[in-house]
Structure formats: C-alpha cells, structure tokens
C-alpha cells in the first residue's frame, strides 16, 4: 500500500485533508486546568500527530516542506481478540522546487544544497510507513499474541520487517518469542530477503532479566546466522549492569558491558562502558548485506572504553560529562578504523527557579590528525510548565585530513562553524503543543544558512 514513493494525486489530497482534520480537532474542548487525563493505556484509541513545517534558506534559494508524523494505537480493535497500531510519515514538498537531484539512492547533494535522504522535493507527496500491524490474542495480550505486519523487532537487532512475530509467555517469568518475515529497507520490502529467529526472555524480577536469541538472515549476497546472550541486572540498590554478547556465523561478533551506579550521599551517577568487536565486519558478513550494506564503514576488531558521570553540585550547579577511548587492533587509518579519544563536559547553573544556564564543551581526536573541538552555551527560561524557551550558540572547529595514497599528498582543511539557535515550546494544553525552532548557521565553506521549523503536536 505504502511504497517508497507514491506520487499520486489522491495522496496529496489525503495529506492535506489530514492536516485540516488535525487542525479541526484542536478546536475541540481542551482539558480543564488541573484535570487529570486518563493515561494512554486507559484509552482505546491514543496517539499523536506531529505536523512540521520546515523552511530553509541559503543564498537566494529556499526550500519549504511539510511533514506529518502519525503514531496511532488502538487497544481494542476487536475486544478480547485484536489490537493494532501504525506509524508513518507523510512528506509533502510545498514550494514545488524542482531539484536536479534524483531521489534516494543517489549521491548528489552538491546539486541541491538542501538535499538529504528525508527531504521532500520535486513537488511530490509520498508516505513512509514505519509500522503497521495487528496483534491477535485470546482474551488478553498478556497471555501471548501474534503480531502481523510491518514492525521493528527490537529484541532481534531492531530488524525492520514485514513479519509475523509470536510472543508466548511460558511461565510467569519466561517468554518465548519467534518471528519470520521479509526485511524492510527504507520502507520497502526487500524481495528475496528473508529473516527469522527465536528468542527466550527470562525475567524473574525487574532487577534480573536475560535474553537469548538466534536469528538468520538470507539475502542474495550472503546468509548470516546471529546469536546473542544479553542480561540486565540490578545487584544492589542504585546499581545496574548490562552485558550483551553476540555471535555472527562461526565467530564471536562483539561484547558490550555497561555498568552504572548511583551514589546517593554524593548525588552522583557513574557509568562505565566497554565494547569489544571481535571480528571483522565487511564482505560476506551481515554488515554487508543489502539490509546492512555499509562497505564504506567496514570495521576491524576494536576495543572501546568509556566513563561518564552526572553530578549535582552545591549552589544550584550541575556537572556531567565523560571520556571515551577506542583502540583498533589494526589501525589502518581508514575511514572507520581509527583510534580516537573523546571527551565532553556540561556545566549547568540554576540561579533562579525559572532560569537556567549551561555551558558545554566537546572534543574528539581521531588518529591521525582529524579532530573536533566545540563549545556551546544556552540560556533557558521556564516561567511555568507550559512554556520553555531557550537561546544558545555553538562553535565548532573541525580538522579533516584527506590523503592521496598514490602520490602521498596530504590535504587538510579546518572549517570553523558557528550556529545560533532559539526554540520555544508552548504546551497549550494536555492535547496540543507548539514548538518553534530557528537556526542560523555560518561556516567557512557555505554562506549563511537559516532553518525555521514550526511543529504542532496533537495528542489524543
């Protein structure tokens, strides 16, 4: 029904009708002050519609688009038997700006200064269907359900698929999950690509959870088997531990270990992360399947270590930040395989109840001779819980290196980028919200660039 591109007249009609309908809904009586709304789960139909108008200017050119995000859940499609949900994005190019840039799948941004994957252009309307499924069950979904349709399989590597997934509680603390379907890439099914798998979730308590899974992916380049063992543990108060081990075909793929601890006496939260990539991810691995093809970012084994903290200080100050280091086993200085260090810190200050200030710094150093150093400041004002206004600026110094292997030439550029922004969020009532974002950007390579985003959120 929804393909990658639906250039039909009826669709434009539908898009604009939907916008008008949503506008009409805002005229309905709003929630009285102090009245507590039922939670989403208490309503049979709930969701939101975000309508975004975006306008951009660069030199004498401009681009105006309209986007609408729908996310709808129906708790009882058929009472006791079925529920359903869908989410999609409607895209409309308002100004009919004709770009020489072809559609997705082509690298042409220099021909269109506003080009991006998600940009609506060439006077067309189309839809991206993220999810659309129904859950079938007997009595209550708590007793297990079968999900049919387009869905994200978050338990299985977030595979996006047109699939059937079964969730079946086998005991009060264990759930069996299985799926089979066709992978989706950029909102279209991949013909001849099939994927399926099974998993077991064991959850004796909210402090103790395990996940074991196996899934297989078949496409026209390679067939890959993936398996994973994952656990979440809270061994004592304030502590969380997460570990995930994944295998790919006959090899160990990666290990990820994350820990956090909240120290109440100091109001301090510490995070420790360690990731290890055991195997190369490139051709003939899943990384290079049509679904995951990223040949330009093939990876060699590496280790990554990081520490982060979040600390409350006296005098209404707060401090957060972290350090991260990656070490690659074979640092060939290629694009995705370099040693690097990273650090960031944010200091926030609340001198008055409704005002806040924050200063941030961020630094990257990638071997060899690629770096970024940025700093930013923001002032925020929240007179009440309905209004949130912020103004800020950020400055970034990039250093890029380009190398010509044949002649050994080394080319280096270091653009300085300044961005100024302001945003206003106005929560009109429990069902409506307006957001305005205005960005102004100045860098050494392009002329001044402006972006205006008007977002209206309607919740129901």
């Amino acid at each position: 029904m929804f393909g990658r591109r639906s250039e039909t007249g009826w669709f434009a009609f539908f898009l604009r009708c939907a916008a008008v309908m949503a506008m009409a809904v805002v005229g309905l009586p709003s929630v009285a002050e102090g009245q507590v709304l039922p939670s989403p789960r208490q309503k049979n139909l709930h969701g939101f519609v975000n309508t975004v108008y975006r306008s951009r200017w660069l030199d004498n050119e401009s681009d105006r688009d309209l986007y609408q995000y729908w996310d709808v859940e129906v708790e009882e499609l058929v009472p006791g038997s079925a529920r359903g949900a869908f989410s999609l994005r409607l895209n409309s190019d308002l100004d009919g700006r004709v770009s020489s840039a072809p559609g997705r799948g082509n690298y042409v941004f220099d021909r269109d200064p506003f080009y991006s994957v998600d940009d609506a252009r060439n006077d067309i309307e189309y839809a991206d269907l993220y999810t659309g499924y129904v859950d079938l069950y007997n009595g209550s979904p708590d007793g297990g359900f079968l999900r049919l349709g387009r869905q994200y399989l978050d338990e299985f590597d977030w595979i996006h698929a047109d699939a059937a997934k079964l969730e079946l509680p086998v005991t009060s603390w264990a759930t069996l999950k299985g799926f089979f379907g066709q992978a989706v890439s950029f909102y279209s099914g991949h013909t001849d690509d099939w994927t399926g798998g099974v998993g077991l979730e064991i959850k004796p308590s909210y402090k103790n959870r395990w996940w074991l899974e196996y899934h297989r992916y078949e496409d026209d380049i390679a067939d890959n088997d993936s398996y994973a063992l994952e656990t979440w543990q809270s061994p004592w108060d304030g502590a969380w531990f997460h570990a995930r081990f994944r295998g790919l075909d006959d090899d160990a793929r990666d290990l990820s270990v994350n820990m956090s601890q909240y120290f109440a006496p100091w109001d301090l939260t510490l995070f420790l992360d360690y990731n290890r990539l055991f195997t190369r991810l490139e051709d003939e691995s899943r990384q290079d399947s049509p679904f995951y093809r990223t040949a330009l970012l093939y990876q060699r084994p590496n280790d990554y270590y990081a520490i982060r903290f979040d600390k409350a200080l006296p005098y209404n100050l707060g401090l957060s930040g972290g350090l991260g280091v990656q070490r690659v086993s074979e640092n060939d200085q290629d694009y995705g395989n370099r040693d690097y260090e990273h650090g960031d810190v944010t200091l926030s200050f609340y001198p008055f109840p409704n005002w806040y200030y924050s200063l941030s710094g961020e630094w990257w150093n990638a071997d060899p001779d690629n770096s970024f150093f940025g700093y930013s400041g923001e002032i925020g004002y929240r007179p009440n819980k309905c209004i949130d206004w912020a103004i800020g600026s950020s400055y970034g110094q990039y250093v890029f290196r380009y190398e010509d292997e044949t002649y050994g030439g080394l080319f280096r550029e270091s653009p300085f980028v300044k961005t100024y922004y302001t945003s206003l969020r106005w929560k009109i009532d429990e069902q409506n919200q307006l957001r305005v974002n205005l960005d102004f950007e100045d860098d050494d390579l392009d002329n001044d660039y402006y972006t205006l985003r008007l977002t209206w959120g309607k919740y129901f």
Partner: protein
Amino acid sequence: MKAPAFVPHLRSIGAGKRAARLVFLSMPLALLWLAGCQLPRVVKESAPSPSSPSVGAGLTEDWGGAAGSPVKATPDPNTPGLQRFSHEQHVTENELECAVCHEIGESGRPKMPDHEVCSGCHDINETEPSADCLTCHVLSQQQVQDEAFADIAVRRVPEQGEFQFNHSSFAGEPGVCANCHKQAPGSLVATDNLRGDHGSLFPALREKGFDTKNCTTCHVSMGKNTPPPSHSNPGFLQHHGAEYRTMGSSYCMTCQVEKQCQTCHEQTQPTSHLRPEWTRSHGKMGQVDEEKCQMCHNEQSCKICHSSQMPQDHTNFFRRRSHGNIAAINRDRCLVCHKQDYCQACHIGAAPLMTPQPFHVAGAACLACHSPASAVRPLRRHGPLPQASCLNCHRFQ
C-alpha cells in the same frame, strides 16, 4: 547456505572464538543457576541490604508480606524465641479442625491456644520447666547447654493488634480457613504471620459480603486518608517507585488508583528531568533502566519528540560535510535513530570527493592513474566501473 551455528567450531582459535565458546558453554550453567536460584520467590524474599533500608522494608513489616511477595516467608522453626508447632502434623495428618485450637471468640478474633488448650492432649508442667518444654519452645544452643529452661518466654499474640477482622462469618465452616491462611496447613511454627495476602483474601471476603475497599474491615488504623505506617518511613518518597515495581502494581492499587500516581507525577517531574543536560543524558539513563522510564512513559512518549525533532547538532554543516566523520568514529550514536540502510540510501551510489589535486580537473583521464589494477584506494573495493564518466558520481572539491 551455511548451517546455523550456535556453537563455534572447536578448532577455532583467537580471543573472539574462545570467548564465544566460553559464553555458550556457560549458558547451560547460567540456566541452571537461573532455575535453581533466581526464581521469583527467592529473589523477592531476600532481605533488603543495609544500604537500602527503606526499599520494601516498611511495607514488609507493616503489611505482613515480604518485599515482593505479599505473603511473608515462614520463619525457621529452629529460631530461638519461636515456638515449634507442626500444623502439618496436627491439621493434615491428624485431621484436626482449626477451631479445636483456634476457637473464634466473641470479638470474632480466633484465639491463640495456650497451655490449657495444649494440655488436652499433651502433659505440660509449667511449674518445673524441663527439656520436655523444648518440644515446642526453642532456646539457643547456649541456653540448652546451660539447661536454662526457666528462660523460656511464652510469646503471646496481643488481643488487639493492627488487625481486627471479624472471623465470625467463617465459624463452623470446616476447612475454610486455608482459603485465606494458605501457609498455615504446612507451617512448622506457632506464629501469627500466617495471614494471607490481599490477592487470596479478597475473593473469599467478597464471597462473604465484606467490603474489601474498606481498609478498616481488617486494619485498625488504615484507610483512604490514613496510609500504612510504611508510607511515613524516611526515604519512602524517594523509594516508593522501586517499591511499586518490587511489590507489583496490583499491590499498591489495593488502595491507590492510577489517578493518585498521576496527581503527583504529572505535576512533579523527578528532579533529574529538570536539569538542562537531561535533554542530552536521558537516552543514557533510558539505556540503563528502560523499565524505569516506562513507569510514566510509554513508547509513544519517545516518539513524540524523536520522530520529528532532530538533535541540535544536526546542522547544515553536519548534513553536508561532517556527519560521515562523526558516523565513522561513533556510529552507535547514529544507530539510535537510523538503521544502516539510512547511509545506504544515499551512499550506495556515493563516491568520495576528489582530493584537491591540480590534475583533478574536467577532462582529466581518470583511469590513467585509477585503473582497476592499481593499488589506489578508491578502486580496491570498487565494483564494476561505469561505462560513462567518473564524474557521474565523483565530484571536485
């Protein structure tokens, strides 16, 4: 087509394969450990650590249930100070009715048997305590060695405690007690904490016409405006969320309704949410304990912002120039929102920029240097070369 490979080849060498083998060989052990040690009952009955005195402790004490389980665990019958009494032998094996020992008094409260009741079957000499007393009364090892039988303290249940339920409606109904006092028939101790939990009590009470919404049916000093004493414990405000998760929502909902949660939580956010950096750090917190977020938020809560609001650093420069470098060194961040196919959508036909060489000009003979046989990097992984000009894809800087 390769066969599924849960277990790596045993011939494999290297750290990765060794790790794979280790993990998957240890999986059965992990499962055994899970099955044997991590079933819900054990986890929930564990005593709170000293560092977390308020999590569940107050509720356990005052509501007659262990943290996470509304039914308190039966104490060890060899605990000094307790009285051994095999309900199993008396009730199950000898088929004695509960009322033989626990006669329901005029107040509707079942009596606790004293020596007079026990003397109906057993010889008891209160005036000269002896080792015979140890049949029921438990002394410490030292007291037994010292034959300090006079130390025996008879522990009596107070006539009027926190509970005041009138059992008269159940008088004369054989076998009905176990409907609520589920642990009693198998208990090996004489204790007053064999009460049932709300889940097992309420159906039986409703059947008899009791108003289970009225707390004072059972609790002397508890009601809609008089919360359990646990709610006054220091730190309850800070920890009640954890208690809610430990005890289960239905337990809190005995008295609370969802509206009461919302009354505070829709007006009062956790202090962490009010910090400016929360916008940046909440993803990390969500990764650590996703379910904590889900106490107030659902999946749609994330999507409301994240479906249409890009990160602040996704500027024009980022879009046109720097996102590749950022993705190269920190792709996990990209994968929070984008699948890999997002890169592919542009870059499947993408071509690197030409380096700013003087000979990289229109009309240059590209393949003179960049032949497929050369070692020049762009061609190492280059697919079939297009028939048309290289400039169809590559561009000058």
